[in-house]
């Protein structure tokens, strides 16, 4: 019969329309600002810098090694290395970034900076509500804007963050053991330059 196919299709849409009153499955709309979809744990938008403890500059894990700057495909990271050093999470003296800028108007959210970072310092954030009318001011993030606490990292990527913490703790234990082993050796040989092993 001519028109049968059309009627079949219309029945389908009618089923979906009526079904949307009773079934969650068929009512897919998310009323965005009031109601939000759960953010996936692996979700990534823009990078941020992790710091330990309460002070953002003191606890920053980044040692300004500039690997992410080199590997970043669209070249949206800019780092300036410090002249002096500060202790990092295992107590080793390290450089820190005096300047760490990410231009999020260029960033392509590819996560390669996170993958290449050997210090677990840069991670991906999940905040996406960043629309602004100020292109030159609003889209260039400096190191203070980028710094987020480890607690925040735990809140957005719990599984990944605990793994990272476990790894860092292990390293710390190893480093301490090494330091302990090195201390008697250093004491036995006083002429060796102090701190040279670091």
């Amino acid at each position, binding site marked *: 019969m001519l028109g049968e196919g059309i009627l079949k299709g219309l029945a389908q849409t009618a089923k979906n329309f009526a079904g949307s009153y009773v079934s969650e499955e068929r009512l897919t709309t998310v009323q965005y600002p009031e109601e939000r979809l759960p953010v996936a744990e692996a979700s990534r938008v823009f990078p941020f810098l992790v710091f330990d403890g309460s002070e953002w500059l003191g606890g920053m894990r980044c040692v300004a090694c500039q690997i992410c*700057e080199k590997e970043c495909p669209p*070249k949206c*990271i*800019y780092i300036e290395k410090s002249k002096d050093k500060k202790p990092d999470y295992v107590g080793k003296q390290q450089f820190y970034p005096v300047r760490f*800028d*990410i*231009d999020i108007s*260029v960033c392509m959210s590819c996560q390669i900076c996170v993958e290449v970072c050997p210090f677990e310092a840069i991670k991906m954030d999940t905040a996406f509500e960043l629309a602004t009318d100020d292109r*030159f001011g609003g889209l*260039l993030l400096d190191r203070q804007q980028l710094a987020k606490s480890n607690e925040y990292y735990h809140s957005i990527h719990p599984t990944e963050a605990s793994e990272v913490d476990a790894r860092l703790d292990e390293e710390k234990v190893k480093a301490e053991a090494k330091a302990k082993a090195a201390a008697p050796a250093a004491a036995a040989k006083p002429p060796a330059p102090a701190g040279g092993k670091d």
Partner: protein
Amino acid sequence: MKTVEEIKAAIEAAVPGAKVEIVPNPGPSGEHSLLLGHEQAVEVARFLRDDPELALDYLSNVTGVDWLDKEVTEKVKVKRQVTKTVDGVEQTVEETVDETRKHVEPGYLEAVYHLFSMARKHGPVVLRLRTGNRTDQVEVPSLTMLWRAAEFQEREVFDLYGIVFKGHPDLRRILMWEGFKDHPMRKDYVEPDDYEYEPTAHDQVLKRAQAHQAQAAAMGQEGAGAGQ
């Protein structure tokens, strides 16, 4: 499927006077290619397509490659006649001297064709065509008349590399606009200086941004729109 050597032999048997050379591929993929001479290229390609055993009816990929001029330095031993005073007597002695010679191997543009067979489900056979140099002898014969698949791809190679395909029915620019002068995929292409605000510039990008700012400063306030 036949090996490259067998294909070469088959071509030489079928197309008299065909110039075919094997270009080896040192990589693990082992896809060696056949370099064709210009005169018989279309004949050879027709043979490859129509030969029932090869039946390469499907041209998958056409692309260009730009090989720049290479400066080759080599050490050559040269015999030279030197006049020497030996035991108070002047003599002419032949001596071997090391000499470094430099010569420039001219670069060329290359069109690469990847052929497969849909009928017999084998492949790839890689064909290469080379131009004389990179400036004025940039013609190679077109294979569009044999495989329509080459139509847009050869146009793209013409657009981006500047290889002129002789016999192509509609050789116009395809990706860039009409009136564009350069061939941007060539290795020595210089981009136009359209400066962009670069807050995170480093390495080459920083160099370019600095060059632009220096240029803008030299031109004064008039052309320094970006300097303001």
